[in-house]
Structure formats: C-alpha cells, structure tokens
C-alpha cells in the first residue's frame, strides 16, 4: 500500500502549508508561485526540505516524493499527499458528507465538513502536466458552487488538466446548464452511479427515495450540454438480475454516455458491513454481467469491468477487464505468483479477503 499521508515535522506555526516537493531546483510555470520546497538532505527515513529559512521533514524517500504536492497544517504530525506526481490515481476528497447511503459505500459519509478548496486549488495548479485529477467524496456536488469555481479557475490556469468527478448526480439544476457549457467542462468526465433501471431497486440501493427519478432529470439536463458521462454500476446481489435491462436502458435512453464501468464490490466501509448480503460472486455466475457487456458493446456503449481479477472472468470477456484498482489500495495474493495473466491483471483490493470472496479463482497457465 502506498501512503497517502506522511509523518511530518518542522511546520510549527502560521498557515496551513501547501507546497511542492522538488529534489532539484525547478524553473517551470509552477515555481513562480513560490511554493517549491527543495530537498536539502535525506537522513535515514526522513527527507528534509526547505524554502528560504523554513525547513520541514517528511518521512519518506525523496525520490518517491519528487514533484508531489503536500498539505501540512501547522503543528500537525502528518502531511496529506494531495498530488503524487508519479501516480495516475490522484483524487481530492471534497467532503465526507453525502445525501445518499449506498449499501456498498466504501467510504461511509460523516456529518462534519472541512472546507479545503483553497488548498485544492493550489494543488491542482501545481499538478504535473496533463494530470487527471479525481474529485470524490462523500458527495462533492453538495458544495457545487465551490466545486464549479474550482473547475473554472483551474481550467483558466491549467487547461491541460482533466477531472474525473464522482457524483450521485442529484444536485444538477437547470440553471447550471449555461455554466456546464463553458469550455472548462470539456475537461470534466462525470462518473454517475446507476444501479438498475428499475426505480425501486436503484432507490433502495442508494438509500434515497426518488433518487432514480432525479437521475432521469439530470441526464435530460446534461443532454443539453456537451458533458462527458461515465455510468458506474456495482454488481451486487440486489441488482445483478437487472443488469441486462440496465444495459438496454442505458443504450436506449442515455446514448450520450461514453462509457459504462461495471464494478465489483469493495470490502470496506458499508461494503464490509453488507458483504454477506450483497457480494455477488461473478466467478461462479457471470451470465448477467456477460449479457450486460454484449448488449452495451453491440449498441456501441464502451462497457468495462473494474475490480474483476482476470481469473474470475471467462476468457472471451477478459478483454473488457481493466487493471483498475488504484495503486495505493491494490494487492496480489500468494497464488498470483507466476500466473500467466498477472501482467494484465488489476489484482485485488488491499482489503480483499480470500475466504469470503470469489469461489472460482486462482492461477492461470
């Protein structure tokens, strides 16, 4: 597992520090912000950085941290790694509040909210060239005004960046349409979960009456913009029988969605709590997932499997599986050693448990 937080020392007072760590002096378009902290020494587990006469230390190897953007509150014992320069999986957690309670949620909502938009703004501006930045929650659109402002302002500074916003799509309003037509939003991919085309099934899974109907409103509204849309569906016991109908619905009613991510459950958060009730073993029954893929691809919707280890997928369908699990929460099991598919496989979540997981699994010749 890769650390998203780093033990830190040295920043005793003043404002929360948002800084870029550099191993050697850089003179690029980010340096003018005056937030580059340059490596002074590596002493054992600690890397020391300084800017002017201000020094900080972070527990880590300087070569792994080069180009990272960190956030360090005064007197804090650890720093957030907001941007990891060498990763494709950077995301900014806008809030932990949410207005839905999904049965498989990997990050259950909390009531408290801390506004970090100012730090996020700086982090984005200092991100590496052409980075893709995830925007997650909770439900980031609960802070829609600030979020739109962030996306618009960052785009003005850094039109090379693209954003992948995970949202339940319950908070778009007709008056947002004009904003969404701004060129800044050409660089935004909206990832929207739809669990079934049967309203009662979807509403029960997300724990909110009327959620499906609100989705219909949102898709109608987004069809008036050039929004790029990804649909996300976690396969579970309570929706797997509905997958073919969902594929039919998506291809018939939402042809402007450009991709469909069909995902396996993550055993953490509510996903752990509801594992026994909701985990659907696609390694022993792939039929509905297969139908969903065939209907989607037959009609031109690019459907992909996420979080499906290759050995659990019939060979004719392995080409749709993406090695998707974020670097910092991915692992391989002992039996993966020497597996013929290992190089293309996405592996397992860090918190995957063999005992309660897939039944048909393991080594491929």
């Amino acid at each position, binding site marked *: 597992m890769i650390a998203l937080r780093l033990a830190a020392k040295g920043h005793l007072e003043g404002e929360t520090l948002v800084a870029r760590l550099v191993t050697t002096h850089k003179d690029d378009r980010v340096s003018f912000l005056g937030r580059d902290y340059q490596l002074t020494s590596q002493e054992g587990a600690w890397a020391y950085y300084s800017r002017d006469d201000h020094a900080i230390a972070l527990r880590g190897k300087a070569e792994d941290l080069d180009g990272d953007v960190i956030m360090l509150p005064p007197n804090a014992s650890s720093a957030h790694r907001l941007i990891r320069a060498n990763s494709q999986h950077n995301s900014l957690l806008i809030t932990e509040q949410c207005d839905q309670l999904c049965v498989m949620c990997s990050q259950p909502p909390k009531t408290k909210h801390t506004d970090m938009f100012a730090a996020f703004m700086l982090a984005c501006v200092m991100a590496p060239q052409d980075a893709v930045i995830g925007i997650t929650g909770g439900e980031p659109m609960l802070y829609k005004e600030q979020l739109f402002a962030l996306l618009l302002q960052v785009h003005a500074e850094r039109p090379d960046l693209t954003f992948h916003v995970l949202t339940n799509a319950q908070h778009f309003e007709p008056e947002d349409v004009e904003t969404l037509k701004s060129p800044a939003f050409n660089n935004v991919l909206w990832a929207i979960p739809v669990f079934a085309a049967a309203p009662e099934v979807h509403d029960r899974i997300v724990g909110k009456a009327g959620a499906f109907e609100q989705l219909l409103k949102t898709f109608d509204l987004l069809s008036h913009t050039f929004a790029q849309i990804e649909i996300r569906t976690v396969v579970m016991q309570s929706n797997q029988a509905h997958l073919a109908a969902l594929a039919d619905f998506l291809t018939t009613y939402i042809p*402007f969605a450009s991709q469909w991510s069909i995902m396996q459950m993550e055993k953490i958060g509510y996903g752990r709590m509801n594992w026994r009730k909701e985990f659907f073993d696609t390694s022993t029954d792939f039929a509905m997932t297969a139908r969903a893929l065939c209907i989607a691809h037959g009609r031109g919707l690019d459907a992909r499997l996420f979080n499906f280890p290759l050995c659990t997928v019939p060979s004719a369908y392995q080409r749709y599986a993406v090695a998707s699990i974020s670097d910092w929460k991915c692992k391989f099991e002992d039996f993966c050693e020497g597996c013929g598919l290992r190089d293309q496989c996405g592996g397992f979540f860090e918190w995957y448990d063999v005992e309660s997981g897939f039944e048909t699994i393991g080594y491929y010749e």
Partner: protein
Amino acid sequence: MSQANYDLSDRLAALRGRAQSFRNAQRSYIPSEMSYLILVPTLRCNLACSYCQVSRVAERASGFDWSEETLNSVLEFIQNLRVPRLKVEFQGGEPLLALSLLKRVREFCRANLADVEFVICTNLQSISQEAFEFLSHADVTISTSFDGTQDLHRKQRMSSDEEMQGFLSNVRRILARYGPNKLSALPTLDPRCLPSADELLDGFFEWGMSSIFLRPVANYGFARKAHDAQVISDNWYQFHQEVVTEMIQRNFQKGTHFEDYYLSLCLRRMLRSDVNGHVDLRNPNLLGKDYIVIDYDGTFYPTDEARMLTRTGQIDLSVGHVSGGVDQNKLNTLNAYSSNFGDPDCDSCRHQAYCGRDVVDDLSRYGRIDLPRSETEFCKRHLYLFGLMEDLLESPDPAVHHSLALWAGIPDWDPILSKVTQ
C-alpha cells in the same frame, strides 16, 4: 396510475426524446477533415480484364502517368491538408508500374505527417524485386482482386495459364511472408457466371481470409460496355443469400469467422448510431469532405466511380484540378442531394435512419438523380440487405446468433439486441 408513476413515465418519455435527437445528430455525420486520398499515378496496366472498372490503357502507352508538375501539385495538396493522419490508396491502372512515383509520395508523407498508411491496389501480376521491397514495409497493405475461385479468376482476368501462375505465386509469396492481414482480396462477381457458395468460401479460406466484400460486377467504366449490369439480377440476391447461409453454418460448425463485409456494416449501422466510417453507406453522404480522388492527369473526382463515369463520357463529374484546387461549387451541387431526408420514399421507410444515399450510383445507372427512390438499384439492394438482416435478427437459430455476435464484434448474441432502437 399514481402521481409518482405518472411523473416517472413523463420523465422517461422526455429522456427518450433527447436520446433520439442525440442519435439522429450522431448519424448525420459531417466529416471534419480529409482522411483518405485515392491517388491514380498511372492509368497503364498489364492486364485487360473484360470488366475493368478502373479504365486502363496499355502497359507501354505514354502520357498516362503523373507529370513531374502533377506530382509536385499532389505533394503540395497533401502538405496543405495539414492533417495529423492520412490513409493513401494507390489505384490505377496498375500502380506498381509507376513505382518511382509511389516512392516519392510515400517518402513525402512519412516526412510530413505524423501517422500515415498506404494501401496498394494491385493485380499482383508481375512484381519486380523492387516493387516487392516497396510492399514489404509495415505501413503498407495490399488490396487485390480475386474472383473467388481460381477457375473464374483465370477465365475473367487472365489471357494465359502463365499469367495465372504469376498471380498465384505472388499471392502465395505475400501470404507466406506476411500472413493474411497484409493482403485483402475483393471479389468481382458476375451474376451470369457465379461460383457456388462452397467454392467461393473454400477459395478465400485457403488464403486465410474470412471477410469478403460480396458485390456484383459494377456498372462503371468499361464494365458497362461488356456486361449488362444495369439491373442487379435476381441471380445475385439468390447467390448472396446462399453464401450468407453457408457462412452462418460454417461459422457455427467449424469455428470460422466468415462475414460479408458489407452485410456486417449494415448490421452495425442498425445496432449503433456511430458507424459512419464507410463511404458507401452513410447519410448524408457528403462528397469531397474526407476523401477525394486525384487522377493520372491531376483531375479531382469525388469518388473512384465518378472518375470512371467521366472517363466513359457519361457525365463530367470532375471537381477541379490539383493545380487549381477543388471546385467547391460543383461539389456543393452534388452534395445538395446527398441525404435521404426529405425524400418521400425514404421518409416513409423504416430503414431510413441507418440507410444512406449514393448520388454517383444513381447517375451511373440512370443518368439522373430524380427517379423515385424505390425504383433505384441502391434502394432495392439495401431493402434486400436490411430485410435479410431483419430476418436474421428474428431467427431463433443458435447458429444465426453465433454469426450475428461475430459480425457485431461481441462474444455472444443477446436477444435484446434483436430489438433495433432507431
């Protein structure tokens, strides 16, 4: 019905309308830039096939190759396209007879474009060592004609057994060295003299080829003089159906991947709204936007068929000259009739959304474009193809489903896909 349900069905109906608009817009494809050039550096040819579609002159005739001036204008034209990628098809005549011109175009393209591929349409009759070297490069693919069986090919194209052996040994040499992906073979089938479905499929299978563009002899160029192809005969449709049926059986029983390239295209256009890449079937079918032909004398034509029609004196469909640019006025005149929208027959046809229009085909057959659509061969042929596909979509036969999945490019067929969403 409760209030809640009523709201939901309203919302669904509204979203369905939006989806329909999106699909219509996606299907009304307007190419943004040139992506395909058909170049005819020479009209000279070393064969004299009875139905030659690509008007040709004798191998040693002079004055039928690009002049130095024309070559330079072509290169300048390519330069001024300012596109990142381009596919360049060399037609003829027999383009390999003008190898030095081909080489200069290729060198220029490689130096000036990020991504360029070449297709050489050759009869593979006599390939010099130098020509073989030219073909061997990874950015070159070869397109040739093969009439399905060696007997027919010999009869229709060759004047001697030696010629036939020359062709066959070149095919074998290319297949052995580069595999079947390097070479595609287009059959030209004469409805008066058709092979059996078995013979045809055996012939292609032997060469490792399974995608066959089934098309009857065309009504262009010199083809028209020798053959009465103005009406595609019933023979053809019967033959086509037999071949498709045989493909379905073989695919299911023997695990082959046979397809009629064009029928697969029809299927994909019925299933999806984003299949606009084929110039024979799209709507509108705008000419001179994403591909154009440059003839041996530097004249532009909107299609290769337009070039042949002009050469046989039926109508002048040239659209400018490479030294002076494309004649936009003439293109606009042709393009005013490029869509099937607004046509009374098409507007009442259930296939309108995925069908197309081909102005040049109408001109070639009838010398006019105002015939009732339903009386044109284009319409009859597509009614047959879409009708055949509808029959296949309704079939409960697992063998049919197996081939439908192959042709649609998916692992398995799903009954939901048989319901075509317009």
